Protein backbone atom coordinates (compact mmCIF):
# COMPACT_ATOMS: atom_id res chain seq x y z
CA UNK A 1 0.00 0.00 0.00
CA UNK A 2 1.67 3.27 -1.02
CA UNK A 3 1.33 6.29 1.19
CA UNK A 4 -1.64 8.21 -0.11
CA UNK A 5 -0.71 11.58 1.23
CA UNK A 6 2.74 13.01 1.38
CA UNK A 7 3.02 16.18 3.43
CA UNK A 8 3.01 18.35 0.38
CA UNK A 9 -0.19 16.82 -0.92
CA UNK A 10 -1.87 17.02 2.44
CA UNK A 11 -1.16 20.73 2.63
CA UNK A 12 -2.39 21.19 -0.93
CA UNK A 13 -5.60 19.35 -0.10
CA UNK A 14 -6.20 21.39 3.04
CA UNK A 15 -5.54 24.66 1.26
CA UNK A 16 -7.88 23.73 -1.56
CA UNK A 17 -10.62 22.76 0.91
CA UNK A 18 -10.27 26.12 2.64
CA UNK A 19 -10.41 27.93 -0.70
CA UNK A 20 -13.44 25.85 -1.65
CA UNK A 21 -15.34 26.66 1.52
CA UNK A 22 -14.50 30.35 1.17
CA UNK A 23 -15.59 30.41 -2.47
CA UNK A 24 -18.81 28.53 -1.82
CA UNK A 25 -19.82 30.69 1.11
CA UNK A 26 -18.96 33.78 -0.92
CA UNK A 27 -21.10 32.71 -3.87
CA UNK A 28 -23.94 31.30 -1.76
CA UNK A 29 -24.39 34.59 0.00
CA UNK A 30 -25.43 36.47 -3.08
CA UNK A 31 -26.75 34.22 -5.79
CA UNK A 32 -29.25 36.74 -7.09
CA UNK A 33 -26.67 39.00 -8.70
CA UNK A 34 -23.91 38.02 -11.05
CA UNK A 35 -20.58 39.76 -10.63
CA UNK A 36 -18.80 41.09 -13.69
CA UNK A 37 -16.56 38.05 -14.36
CA UNK A 38 -19.57 35.78 -13.83
CA UNK A 39 -21.61 37.75 -16.32
CA UNK A 40 -18.78 37.55 -18.81
CA UNK A 41 -18.46 33.78 -18.41
CA UNK A 42 -22.22 33.32 -18.64
CA UNK A 43 -22.47 35.33 -21.84
CA UNK A 44 -19.54 33.64 -23.54
CA UNK A 45 -20.49 30.11 -22.48
CA UNK A 46 -24.12 30.92 -23.26
CA UNK A 47 -23.20 31.82 -26.80
CA UNK A 48 -21.34 28.54 -27.24
CA UNK A 49 -24.19 26.69 -25.60
CA UNK A 50 -26.77 28.13 -27.98
CA UNK A 51 -24.70 26.85 -30.91
CA UNK A 52 -25.31 23.37 -29.54
CA UNK A 53 -28.83 23.72 -28.23
CA UNK A 54 -30.49 25.25 -31.27
CA UNK A 55 -29.61 22.37 -33.63
CA UNK A 56 -30.74 19.98 -30.88
CA UNK A 57 -34.11 21.73 -30.70
CA UNK A 58 -34.36 21.56 -34.47
CA UNK A 59 -33.80 17.81 -34.41
CA UNK A 60 -36.33 17.22 -31.64
CA UNK A 61 -38.80 19.35 -33.58
CA UNK A 62 -38.33 17.22 -36.69
CA UNK A 63 -38.86 14.06 -34.65
CA UNK A 64 -41.90 15.67 -33.05
CA UNK A 65 -43.24 16.52 -36.49
CA UNK A 66 -42.87 12.96 -37.70
CA UNK A 67 -44.61 11.79 -34.57
CA UNK A 68 -47.35 14.33 -35.25
CA UNK A 69 -47.86 13.15 -38.81
CA UNK A 70 -48.29 9.57 -37.60
CA UNK A 71 -51.10 10.65 -35.29
CA UNK A 72 -52.77 12.95 -37.77
CA UNK A 73 -55.81 10.84 -38.51
CA UNK A 74 -56.80 10.32 -34.88
CA UNK A 75 -56.24 13.95 -34.04
CA UNK A 76 -58.12 15.15 -37.07
CA UNK A 77 -61.18 13.24 -35.97
CA UNK A 78 -61.05 14.68 -32.48
CA UNK A 79 -60.43 18.20 -33.70
CA UNK A 80 -63.30 18.09 -36.16
CA UNK A 81 -65.58 17.18 -33.31
CA UNK A 82 -64.50 20.25 -31.42
CA UNK A 83 -64.47 22.64 -34.36
CA UNK A 84 -68.11 23.65 -34.21
CA UNK A 85 -67.79 24.28 -30.50
CA UNK A 86 -64.71 26.38 -31.18
CA UNK A 87 -66.40 28.66 -33.70
CA UNK A 88 -69.14 29.51 -31.24
CA UNK A 89 -66.61 30.27 -28.46
CA UNK A 90 -64.56 32.39 -30.83
CA UNK A 91 -67.54 34.57 -31.73
CA UNK A 92 -68.35 34.96 -28.07
CA UNK A 93 -64.77 35.93 -27.19
CA UNK A 94 -64.65 38.60 -29.92
CA UNK A 95 -67.96 39.97 -28.74
CA UNK A 96 -66.88 40.07 -25.10
CA UNK A 97 -63.52 41.59 -25.95
CA UNK A 98 -65.00 44.44 -27.90
CA UNK A 99 -67.56 45.05 -25.19
CA UNK A 100 -64.82 45.04 -22.57
CA UNK A 101 -62.84 47.57 -24.57
CA UNK A 102 -65.87 49.80 -24.92
CA UNK A 103 -66.61 49.64 -21.21
CA UNK A 104 -62.97 50.34 -20.33
CA UNK A 105 -63.11 53.38 -22.59
CA UNK A 106 -66.25 54.61 -20.87
CA UNK A 107 -64.66 54.46 -17.41
CA UNK A 108 -61.38 55.80 -18.86
CA UNK A 109 -59.34 52.99 -17.32
CA UNK A 110 -56.14 52.67 -19.29
CA UNK A 111 -53.93 50.57 -17.09
CA UNK A 112 -54.72 46.93 -17.11
CA UNK A 113 -53.01 44.28 -15.05
CA UNK A 114 -53.59 41.83 -17.86
CA UNK A 115 -51.65 43.73 -20.50
CA UNK A 116 -48.08 42.65 -21.07
CA UNK A 117 -45.35 42.77 -23.70
CA UNK A 118 -43.69 39.53 -24.49
CA UNK A 119 -40.17 38.51 -25.44
CA UNK A 120 -39.71 35.20 -27.23
CA UNK A 121 -36.75 33.19 -26.03
CA UNK A 122 -35.11 29.86 -26.70
CA UNK A 123 -34.02 27.61 -23.87
CA UNK A 124 -30.32 26.95 -24.29
CA UNK A 125 -29.69 24.79 -21.28
CA UNK A 126 -31.30 23.13 -18.34
CA UNK A 127 -29.28 22.90 -15.17
CA UNK A 128 -27.43 19.61 -15.80
CA UNK A 129 -27.09 18.60 -12.15
CA UNK A 130 -30.77 18.92 -11.55
CA UNK A 131 -30.85 19.84 -7.89
CA UNK A 132 -32.38 23.11 -8.81
CA UNK A 133 -35.02 23.52 -11.45
CA UNK A 134 -33.39 26.18 -13.56
CA UNK A 135 -33.25 27.02 -17.23
CA UNK A 136 -30.99 29.36 -19.10
CA UNK A 137 -32.54 31.28 -21.99
CA UNK A 138 -30.84 33.18 -24.77
CA UNK A 139 -32.34 36.59 -24.02
CA UNK A 140 -30.93 39.02 -21.48
CA UNK A 141 -30.72 42.57 -20.32
CA UNK A 142 -30.14 44.02 -23.78
CA UNK A 143 -33.41 42.45 -24.93
CA UNK A 144 -35.27 44.15 -22.11
CA UNK A 145 -35.47 41.30 -19.64
CA UNK A 146 -35.41 42.11 -15.96
CA UNK A 147 -35.32 40.09 -12.80
CA UNK A 148 -38.60 38.54 -11.54
CA UNK A 149 -40.43 38.67 -14.85
CA UNK A 150 -42.90 35.84 -15.38
CA UNK A 151 -41.98 33.16 -17.90
CA UNK A 152 -44.71 31.24 -19.72
CA UNK A 153 -45.11 28.72 -22.49
CA UNK A 154 -48.14 28.54 -24.73
CA UNK A 155 -49.74 26.27 -22.11
CA UNK A 156 -49.21 28.34 -19.00
CA UNK A 157 -46.93 29.81 -16.39
CA UNK A 158 -43.67 27.93 -15.86
CA UNK A 159 -41.51 30.17 -13.69
CA UNK A 160 -39.75 33.46 -13.31
CA UNK A 161 -36.46 35.11 -14.14
CA UNK A 162 -34.04 34.97 -11.20
CA UNK A 163 -30.78 36.19 -12.71
CA UNK A 164 -30.05 38.41 -15.68
CA UNK A 165 -26.81 38.97 -17.54
CA UNK A 166 -26.51 41.10 -20.70
CA UNK A 167 -27.16 38.22 -23.11
CA UNK A 168 -28.66 35.39 -21.07
CA UNK A 169 -31.01 34.95 -18.17
CA UNK A 170 -31.69 32.20 -15.67
CA UNK A 171 -35.27 31.08 -15.08
CA UNK A 172 -36.36 29.24 -11.97
CA UNK A 173 -39.25 26.86 -12.58
CA UNK A 174 -42.41 26.56 -10.48
CA UNK A 175 -41.38 23.02 -9.57
CA UNK A 176 -38.54 24.34 -7.44
CA UNK A 177 -38.06 23.44 -3.79
CA UNK A 178 -37.06 27.02 -3.03
CA UNK A 179 -39.41 28.17 -0.29
CA UNK A 180 -39.07 31.81 -1.24
CA UNK A 181 -40.66 31.19 -4.59
CA UNK A 182 -44.22 32.50 -4.41
CA UNK A 183 -46.79 33.49 -6.96
CA UNK A 184 -49.94 35.41 -6.11
CA UNK A 185 -52.80 33.44 -7.65
CA UNK A 186 -56.55 33.56 -7.94
CA UNK A 187 -59.17 31.02 -8.93
CA UNK A 188 -60.40 32.17 -12.33
CA UNK A 189 -63.74 33.98 -12.28
CA UNK A 190 -63.96 34.19 -8.48
CA UNK A 191 -62.42 36.22 -5.71
CA UNK A 192 -60.60 33.29 -4.15
CA UNK A 193 -57.03 34.50 -3.69
CA UNK A 194 -54.07 32.48 -2.53
CA UNK A 195 -50.36 31.98 -2.95
CA UNK A 196 -48.71 29.28 -4.99
CA UNK A 197 -46.09 28.06 -2.57
CA UNK A 198 -44.18 24.88 -2.99
CA UNK A 199 -44.39 21.81 -5.11
CA UNK A 200 -45.37 18.29 -4.10
CA UNK A 201 -42.90 15.95 -5.78
CA UNK A 202 -44.82 12.80 -5.07
CA UNK A 203 -48.01 14.11 -6.66
CA UNK A 204 -46.20 16.29 -9.22
CA UNK A 205 -48.56 19.09 -8.31
CA UNK A 206 -48.28 22.66 -7.12
CA UNK A 207 -49.67 23.71 -3.76
CA UNK A 208 -51.80 26.83 -3.39
CA UNK A 209 -51.88 28.02 0.21
CA UNK A 210 -53.60 30.66 2.31
CA UNK A 211 -57.00 30.50 0.74
CA UNK A 212 -59.66 32.04 2.97
CA UNK A 213 -61.51 29.09 4.53
CA UNK A 214 -64.91 30.79 4.21
CA UNK A 215 -64.63 30.78 0.44
CA UNK A 216 -65.74 27.88 -1.64
CA UNK A 217 -63.16 26.19 -3.83
CA UNK A 218 -64.01 23.25 -6.05
CA UNK A 219 -62.01 20.68 -7.92
CA UNK A 220 -61.65 21.32 -11.61
CA UNK A 221 -61.54 25.12 -11.30
CA UNK A 222 -58.74 26.89 -13.15
CA UNK A 223 -56.14 28.91 -11.29
CA UNK A 224 -54.50 31.99 -12.85
CA UNK A 225 -51.96 34.52 -11.67
CA UNK A 226 -53.72 37.38 -9.92
CA UNK A 227 -51.34 40.19 -10.79
CA UNK A 228 -51.61 41.37 -7.19
CA UNK A 229 -48.13 40.11 -6.34
CA UNK A 230 -46.73 43.25 -7.88
CA UNK A 231 -44.73 41.80 -10.75
CA UNK A 232 -46.57 39.18 -12.78
CA UNK A 233 -49.31 40.21 -15.19
CA UNK A 234 -52.83 39.03 -14.42
CA UNK A 235 -54.42 36.07 -16.13
CA UNK A 236 -51.50 33.74 -16.81
CA UNK A 237 -52.86 30.23 -16.54
CA UNK A 238 -51.21 28.19 -13.79
CA UNK A 239 -53.25 25.02 -13.61
CA UNK A 240 -56.33 23.19 -12.48
CA UNK A 241 -57.38 22.33 -8.92
CA UNK A 242 -57.35 18.59 -8.21
CA UNK A 243 -57.89 18.48 -4.48
CA UNK A 244 -58.88 20.87 -1.70
CA UNK A 245 -57.97 20.37 1.93
CA UNK A 246 -57.13 22.48 4.97
CA UNK A 247 -53.64 23.47 6.00
CA UNK A 248 -51.72 22.16 9.00
CA UNK A 249 -53.43 24.49 11.44
CA UNK A 250 -56.90 24.25 9.97
CA UNK A 251 -57.12 28.01 9.58
CA UNK A 252 -56.91 28.36 5.82
CA UNK A 253 -57.59 26.15 2.87
CA UNK A 254 -54.97 24.54 0.70
CA UNK A 255 -55.42 23.32 -2.85
CA UNK A 256 -53.38 21.01 -5.01
CA UNK A 257 -53.01 22.24 -8.56
CA UNK A 258 -52.04 20.23 -11.58
CA UNK A 259 -49.82 22.58 -13.62
CA UNK A 260 -51.09 23.45 -17.08
CA UNK A 261 -47.60 23.68 -18.53
CA UNK A 262 -45.38 20.71 -19.15
CA UNK A 263 -42.05 21.12 -17.42
CA UNK A 264 -40.12 18.55 -19.37
CA UNK A 265 -38.74 19.21 -22.86
CA UNK A 266 -39.03 22.98 -22.69
CA UNK A 267 -37.61 24.63 -25.79
CA UNK A 268 -39.35 27.92 -26.53
CA UNK A 269 -40.60 30.14 -23.76
CA UNK A 270 -42.09 33.64 -23.54
CA UNK A 271 -40.93 36.21 -21.03
CA UNK A 272 -43.65 38.66 -20.05
CA UNK A 273 -43.19 42.26 -19.01
CA UNK A 274 -46.35 43.78 -17.68
CA UNK A 275 -47.29 47.26 -18.75
CA UNK A 276 -48.48 48.51 -15.39
CA UNK A 277 -45.69 49.63 -13.09
CA UNK A 278 -44.20 46.83 -11.08
CA UNK A 279 -43.42 46.69 -7.40
CA UNK A 280 -39.96 45.21 -6.91
CA UNK A 281 -40.83 44.23 -3.34
CA UNK A 282 -44.06 42.44 -4.21
CA UNK A 283 -44.99 38.89 -3.26
CA UNK A 284 -43.90 37.53 -6.62
CA UNK A 285 -40.37 38.72 -5.97
CA UNK A 286 -40.07 36.26 -3.11
CA UNK A 287 -37.59 38.32 -1.19
CA UNK A 288 -35.96 36.20 1.48
CA UNK A 289 -36.32 38.80 4.18
CA UNK A 290 -37.07 36.85 7.33
CA UNK A 291 -38.39 39.90 9.21
CA UNK A 292 -41.20 40.64 6.80
CA UNK A 293 -42.18 37.01 6.56
CA UNK A 294 -44.20 36.94 9.74
CA UNK A 295 -47.12 35.01 8.34
CA UNK A 296 -44.92 32.18 7.17
CA UNK A 297 -45.67 29.90 10.07
CA UNK A 298 -44.43 26.44 9.22
Amino acid at each position, binding site marked *: MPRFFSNKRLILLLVSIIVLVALISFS*LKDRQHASLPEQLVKDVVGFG*QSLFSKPAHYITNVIGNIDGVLNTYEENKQLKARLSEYAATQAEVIDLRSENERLLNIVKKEDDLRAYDSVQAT*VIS*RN*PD*QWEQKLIIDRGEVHGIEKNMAVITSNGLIGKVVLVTPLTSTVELLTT*ENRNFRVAAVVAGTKVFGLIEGYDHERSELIMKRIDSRLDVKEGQKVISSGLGGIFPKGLLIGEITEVSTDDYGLTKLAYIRPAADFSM*LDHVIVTRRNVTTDPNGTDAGISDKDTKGEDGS
Partner: protein
Amino acid sequence: MIRFVVPLIAVLLFFLEPVFSLFSPIELGDIRYTLVPRFVMIYLIFITAYYSRERAIVYGIILGLLYDMFHIDIIGLYAFLYPLICFIASLIIREVHRHIVTVMFLSLSMIILLELFSFFFASLIALTSIHLDEFIVTRLVPTMVANSIFIIMFGWLFKNVIYKRVLLKRGDIL
Protein backbone atom coordinates in the same frame (compact mmCIF):
# COMPACT_ATOMS: atom_id res chain seq x y z
CA MET B 1 -3.92 18.09 -35.19
CA ILE B 2 -4.50 15.30 -32.68
CA ARG B 3 -3.00 17.65 -30.08
CA PHE B 4 -6.17 19.66 -30.02
CA VAL B 5 -8.59 16.79 -30.27
CA VAL B 6 -8.34 15.77 -26.61
CA PRO B 7 -9.29 19.17 -25.13
CA LEU B 8 -11.74 19.74 -27.98
CA ILE B 9 -13.72 16.63 -27.06
CA ALA B 10 -13.80 17.81 -23.44
CA VAL B 11 -15.30 21.15 -24.49
CA LEU B 12 -17.74 19.41 -26.82
CA LEU B 13 -18.97 17.15 -24.01
CA PHE B 14 -19.24 20.16 -21.72
CA PHE B 15 -21.67 21.77 -24.15
CA LEU B 16 -23.54 18.54 -24.84
CA GLU B 17 -24.34 17.84 -21.18
CA PRO B 18 -27.02 20.53 -20.79
CA VAL B 19 -28.52 19.62 -24.16
CA PHE B 20 -29.13 16.10 -22.91
CA SER B 21 -30.42 17.35 -19.60
CA LEU B 22 -33.25 19.03 -21.54
CA PHE B 23 -34.74 15.54 -21.90
CA SER B 24 -34.81 15.06 -18.16
CA PRO B 25 -36.81 14.53 -15.97
CA ILE B 26 -38.75 11.74 -17.62
CA GLU B 27 -41.94 10.33 -16.23
CA LEU B 28 -42.48 6.60 -16.30
CA GLY B 29 -45.60 5.42 -14.59
CA ASP B 30 -46.14 7.90 -11.79
CA ILE B 31 -42.53 8.42 -10.86
CA ARG B 32 -40.27 11.14 -12.15
CA TYR B 33 -36.80 9.93 -12.96
CA THR B 34 -33.97 12.41 -13.14
CA LEU B 35 -31.15 11.63 -15.53
CA VAL B 36 -27.97 13.55 -14.97
CA PRO B 37 -25.51 13.49 -17.86
CA ARG B 38 -21.96 13.22 -16.53
CA PHE B 39 -20.13 13.03 -19.83
CA VAL B 40 -17.28 15.35 -18.85
CA MET B 41 -16.56 13.31 -15.73
CA ILE B 42 -16.40 10.07 -17.72
CA TYR B 43 -14.05 11.62 -20.22
CA LEU B 44 -11.82 13.03 -17.49
CA ILE B 45 -11.52 9.57 -15.95
CA PHE B 46 -10.51 8.16 -19.32
CA ILE B 47 -7.86 10.87 -19.56
CA THR B 48 -6.70 10.01 -16.03
CA ALA B 49 -6.44 6.34 -16.89
CA TYR B 50 -4.82 6.55 -20.31
CA TYR B 51 -3.07 9.90 -20.49
CA SER B 52 -2.02 11.83 -17.44
CA ARG B 53 -3.52 12.63 -14.10
CA GLU B 54 -2.18 16.18 -14.02
CA ARG B 55 -3.82 16.99 -17.32
CA ALA B 56 -7.14 15.54 -16.20
CA ILE B 57 -7.02 17.62 -13.04
CA VAL B 58 -6.26 20.81 -14.95
CA TYR B 59 -9.15 20.16 -17.37
CA GLY B 60 -11.31 19.31 -14.35
CA ILE B 61 -10.59 22.61 -12.64
CA ILE B 62 -11.23 24.68 -15.78
CA LEU B 63 -14.41 22.90 -16.87
CA GLY B 64 -15.63 22.63 -13.29
CA LEU B 65 -15.22 26.35 -12.83
CA LEU B 66 -17.14 27.09 -16.04
CA TYR B 67 -19.84 24.63 -14.98
CA ASP B 68 -20.17 26.32 -11.60
CA MET B 69 -20.33 29.82 -13.01
CA PHE B 70 -22.66 29.08 -15.87
CA HIS B 71 -25.07 26.56 -14.44
CA ILE B 72 -25.26 26.50 -10.69
CA ASP B 73 -23.97 29.89 -9.51
CA ILE B 74 -22.11 28.28 -6.61
CA ILE B 75 -18.48 28.76 -7.50
CA GLY B 76 -16.10 26.08 -6.30
CA LEU B 77 -18.33 23.04 -6.09
CA TYR B 78 -17.58 21.19 -9.31
CA ALA B 79 -14.24 22.97 -9.67
CA PHE B 80 -13.33 20.98 -6.57
CA LEU B 81 -15.27 17.75 -7.19
CA TYR B 82 -13.98 17.09 -10.72
CA PRO B 83 -10.26 17.16 -9.77
CA LEU B 84 -10.97 15.28 -6.54
CA ILE B 85 -12.69 12.44 -8.41
CA CYS B 86 -9.85 12.37 -10.96
CA PHE B 87 -7.39 12.11 -8.10
CA ILE B 88 -9.26 9.22 -6.46
CA ALA B 89 -9.56 7.50 -9.84
CA SER B 90 -5.83 7.79 -10.37
CA LEU B 91 -5.18 6.12 -7.01
CA ILE B 92 -7.42 3.22 -7.94
CA ILE B 93 -6.19 2.82 -11.51
CA ARG B 94 -2.65 2.44 -10.19
CA GLU B 95 -3.69 -0.80 -8.49
CA VAL B 96 -5.59 -2.40 -11.38
CA HIS B 97 -4.96 -3.36 -14.96
CA ARG B 98 -5.90 -0.66 -17.46
CA HIS B 99 -8.18 -2.76 -19.56
CA ILE B 100 -10.99 -0.89 -21.30
CA VAL B 101 -13.66 -2.75 -19.31
CA THR B 102 -12.01 -1.95 -15.98
CA VAL B 103 -11.80 1.72 -16.92
CA MET B 104 -15.47 1.67 -17.92
CA PHE B 105 -16.44 0.21 -14.55
CA LEU B 106 -14.16 2.65 -12.80
CA SER B 107 -15.80 5.64 -14.48
CA LEU B 108 -19.22 4.27 -13.60
CA SER B 109 -18.31 3.85 -9.95
CA MET B 110 -16.74 7.32 -9.90
CA ILE B 111 -20.03 8.74 -11.16
CA ILE B 112 -21.75 7.11 -8.20
CA LEU B 113 -19.23 8.83 -5.97
CA LEU B 114 -19.76 12.18 -7.71
CA GLU B 115 -23.54 11.86 -7.44
CA LEU B 116 -23.26 11.00 -3.74
CA PHE B 117 -21.02 14.01 -3.12
CA SER B 118 -23.36 16.31 -4.96
CA PHE B 119 -26.36 14.84 -3.11
CA PHE B 120 -24.76 15.41 0.28
CA PHE B 121 -23.80 18.92 -0.70
CA ALA B 122 -27.30 19.67 -2.00
CA SER B 123 -28.87 18.39 1.22
CA LEU B 124 -26.35 20.35 3.24
CA ILE B 125 -27.30 23.69 1.74
CA ALA B 126 -30.98 22.67 1.52
CA LEU B 127 -31.33 22.64 -2.24
CA THR B 128 -33.21 19.37 -1.92
CA SER B 129 -35.28 17.65 0.72
CA ILE B 130 -35.34 14.12 -0.67
CA HIS B 131 -34.03 11.23 1.40
CA LEU B 132 -31.23 8.89 0.54
CA ASP B 133 -33.45 5.98 -0.53
CA GLU B 134 -35.55 8.23 -2.73
CA PHE B 135 -32.39 9.72 -4.18
CA ILE B 136 -31.09 6.25 -5.08
CA VAL B 137 -34.31 5.19 -6.81
CA THR B 138 -35.29 8.37 -8.65
CA ARG B 139 -31.89 9.77 -9.44
CA LEU B 140 -28.86 7.58 -8.92
CA VAL B 141 -30.06 4.45 -10.71
CA PRO B 142 -31.48 6.22 -13.81
CA THR B 143 -28.31 8.32 -13.98
CA MET B 144 -26.20 5.19 -13.89
CA VAL B 145 -28.23 3.56 -16.64
CA ALA B 146 -28.06 6.61 -18.90
CA ASN B 147 -24.36 7.14 -18.35
CA SER B 148 -23.45 3.48 -18.80
CA ILE B 149 -25.10 3.62 -22.24
CA PHE B 150 -22.92 6.62 -22.99
CA ILE B 151 -19.79 4.85 -21.73
CA ILE B 152 -20.48 1.75 -23.81
CA MET B 153 -21.07 3.84 -26.92
CA PHE B 154 -18.08 6.14 -26.62
CA GLY B 155 -15.59 4.36 -24.34
CA TRP B 156 -13.71 2.82 -27.26
CA LEU B 157 -13.56 6.07 -29.13
CA PHE B 158 -12.20 7.95 -26.12
CA LYS B 159 -9.59 5.30 -25.52
CA ASN B 160 -8.41 5.33 -29.12
CA VAL B 161 -8.26 9.11 -29.38
CA ILE B 162 -6.35 9.47 -26.13
CA TYR B 163 -4.05 6.61 -27.08
CA LYS B 164 -3.17 8.27 -30.37
CA ARG B 165 -2.28 11.42 -28.48
CA VAL B 166 -0.08 9.47 -26.07
CA LEU B 167 1.71 7.74 -28.92
CA LEU B 168 2.29 11.08 -30.62
CA LYS B 169 3.72 12.52 -27.44
CA ARG B 170 6.05 9.57 -27.00
CA GLY B 171 7.18 10.09 -30.60
CA ASP B 172 7.96 13.73 -29.77
CA ILE B 173 10.07 12.75 -26.83
CA LEU B 174 12.02 10.06 -28.67
